[in-house]
């Protein structure tokens, strides 16, 4: 178990180095005359050169990267070129928003998917048809389109929720719930569509297994067999789909945050992107990569806990 975790952490760290190096090289090499872009067309050549020296842009790329890397390892991602703010500070204040959104969505999606998937697999008939239909539509329609419809209907027409803004959980839990409900629904529908389909499929598959019949022949009720044995065996494939969906949710969050004006990583990255604020973009890339790597590790551990055959490797 421990060697497995250590190996995974090691490969995750290697992955991070590669991502950071590739991203850094691409961002700084192809960024053109960065100092000129920051100062505008009217700045004199001297001022531009001075700015480049100040940002360390006149040194070789590798030196720049190692500088960035050594400070990044201490948690310092440099300063924004435009606001002068510490990148790490603006990242950490926004990370909480995005994480609460994405984790909330994952939990909602997991619960709803299991309920819908099991219902569809066991009852069949019209429930199955409805779940299938919802799954197709939920899969097909982009999340931000759903978000727009939700804003239009529930925030603007019905006025049940605020259309924009964010209340931290620490300030007011109920305010937090009110501010993330619509974004979570918008994000969750797509995830539910995929995961519920997978749950349905793997429950159907598990139900047809021989051991289900044998367990029932021992006097266990079908419900018990389904909720204890079938779900556990169906859990692996469903978790794998959920992991893929999680990465998709991070993408979705970028757009959904914009629609609901939530001050998260998405908003930050869109601002940094449109202004060409490379240190911030770099920080965002690294943070997202860390999140994905950590989540994949957690999913692998969960898989191992579910499936005894995985445990050994």
């Amino acid at each position, binding site marked *: 178990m421990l060697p497995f975790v250590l190996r995974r952490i090691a490969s995750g760290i290697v*992955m991070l180095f590669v991502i950071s190096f590739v991203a850094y090289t691409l961002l700084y090499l192809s960024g053109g005359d960065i100092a000129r872009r920051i100062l505008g067309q009217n700045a004199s050549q001297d001022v531009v050169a001075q700015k480049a020296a100040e940002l360390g842009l006149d040194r070789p790329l590798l030196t720049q990267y190692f500088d960035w890397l050594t400070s990044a390892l201490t948690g310092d991602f440099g300063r924004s070129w435009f606001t002068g703010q510490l990148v790490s500070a603006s990242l950490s204040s926004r990370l909480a928003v995005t994480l609460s959104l994405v984790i909330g969505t994952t939990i909602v999606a997991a619960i709803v998917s299991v309920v819908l998937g099991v219902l569809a697999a066991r009852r069949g008939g019209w429930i199955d048809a409805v779940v299938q239909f919802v799954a197709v539509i939920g899969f097909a329609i982009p999340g931000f389109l759903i978000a727009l419809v939700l804003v*239009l209907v529930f925030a603007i027409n019905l006025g049940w929720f605020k259309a924009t803004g964010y209340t931290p959980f620490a300030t007011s839990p109920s305010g937090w719930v009110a501010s993330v409900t619509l974004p979570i629904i918008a994000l969750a529908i797509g995830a539910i569509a995929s995961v519920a389909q997978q749950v349905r499929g793997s429950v159907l598959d598990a139900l*047809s297994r021989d*051991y289900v019949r044998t367990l029932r*022949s021992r006097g266990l009720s079908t419900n018990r067999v389904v909720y204890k044995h079938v779900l556990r065996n169906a859990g692996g494939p469903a978790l794998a789909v959920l992991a893929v969906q999680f990465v998709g949710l*991070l993408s979705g969050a*970028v757009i959904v945050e*914009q629609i609901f004006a939530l001050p998260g990583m998405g908003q930050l990255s869109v601002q940094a992107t449109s202004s060409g604020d490379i240190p911030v973009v770099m920080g965002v890339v690294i943070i*997202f990569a860390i999140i994905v790597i950590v989540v994949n590790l957690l999913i692998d551990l969960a898989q191992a806990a*579910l499936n005894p055959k995985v445990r050994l490797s």
Partner: protein
Amino acid sequence: MTTAVDLPTNIPTPPVKTSLMRRIVRRPIGVVSLGILIVVGIIAVIGPYIAPYDPNKASLQLVLAPPSAAHPLGADSAGRDVLSRLLVATQVSVVAALLALVTALLIGVISGLIAGYFKGWFDSVSAWFTSLVMALPGIVVLLAVRAVVGPSVWIAMFTFGILLAPAYYRLVYAAVTAVRSELYVDAAKVSGLGDGRIISRHILSVVRAPIIIQSAIIAGIAIAIQSGLEFLGLGDTSVPTWGGMLSDGFANIYKEPLLMLWPALAIGITSIALTLLANVMRDALERTVLVRRRRRRAVATATGSIAAVTTSIGAVTGSLDVDAASAPVIRHDDDVRAAARAGDTILQVRDLHVGYGQDDGSTLEVVHGVSLDIRKGEVHGLIGESGSGKTQTAFAVLGLLPRGGHITGGSIDFEGVRLDQASEKDYTAIRGRRIGYIPQEPMSNLDPSFTIGSQLVEPLRKSLGLSKKDATDKALSLLERVGIPNPKRTFAAYPHEVSGGMAQRVLIAGAVSTDPDLIIADEPTTALDVTVQAEVLDLLRDLQAERHMALLLVTHNFGVVADLCDRVSVMQQGLIVETGPVRAIFGHAEHPYTRSLLGAILDEGPARPPLGTLLTKGGAR
């Protein structure tokens, strides 16, 4: 061998394009979604030519103008004609999505073929690149690219194509790895076909259909992400796009919500049409495989596949087909051994019919009126070849028929309880506690995710209401009783950690654990090694004698019957043809089918002593 022959026929080969198209068109959803996509495609081509106005011509008089005769969809926040923008945007959005699609397709398919077929360093590099790409949310990469190269739909979609390539890569890679090890590919290689020919002929034909389906999905994703980027305002604002129009509408959501409607509809309908088309194609492909498989199974059931019995029977069965249903059951009178148990009947099956509901609403009957009497404490053999309906009869008694199967007639009486009418709730009091079950294939009948011990303890606690400790003790002593050398270790083991013979002993322990009065054993030794078979049969015999249980032994092996049974019923094509004491059947079998089964003993299984010795051995017991 059969899989090697089956595979190429299961997966549509050359005529896939035409037949897939025809199958799509046969379904209403397929026609509608295909129609929508064709319309979108046509608009994408002619949109710029039929647009009534210049899509970028702004007019201060028309800012947020409502729909009018001159401007059927109104005008946007800059006073540009919405209809014209929508028509032109269709072209941009579709071409952008196609760019991503083609990029992903080329990179993914080619690298998947190379990596899967030649393996080696390219394989490792591709695997690494794939996990690298998967470690980043697509939009973050796109944002980073946008930060560097500025707003360009084309560069963004090309990049996105690279990010989507793993979707094809993994599909092709998996297919190639699977096909590569097939015998027919080896055969092609041996016969001197070059790698290029093998890839194009044997491998591409296998992955073509899945690639088409994947493409419909990928196109939908590309449209979604492209309009998402434009919606964020990160696209090229000089070009009208669906996402850009949506963004403009969203900015004016309070003033003119209708502005959002048109681009939202365009994105939504196109995405849904693509997904539905992918679903219809997948259904069409899966259905054909399913139908073929089912047809094969139906044929097997109808003719009685000759798995256990050798070909010599073929001729005999053929002649029997005519009057099998009307012929009376041949009954032999009890001999001394059988008469000893002639007391109470524990299970009485009368004229049992079992059928499976088919997709077209009809019912396929597999058991056509079986009558059986199992006496208390006897071992009753139910013998017949695969597909004769013996396992279906056993499952019907247990109330555990597979999905779609149900009793269509007759009765099953278990000590006064009508099992054919029993509800799931009635059955919970009967299964386990009154009737036990020993399955055929030991490994697949243990839940791989739980320890062997927990699978024994759970029913004990549920059915007998034992405490956890008592149940554990009982399970351990049962494991010891069935001859497991180290009960504690097996108790804590997972099913994949024990051998097939061990697993079968565990299942036997499970079946007897709740002290049932009747055990139904469905070919309990078929899946085991020859040496283990004899041990397991001994164990069954001992347990049966020790606990005075009745045992219904389903088998296709007369050797097993001779070894263990008091009486035997011979089943053929869903009917009992002959029944009586084992000795009578062995001595004077009357039905030609029984005789041919007897004749087949020598052709299979372990070498056994001559029939005579077997019988005296059986009679002495």
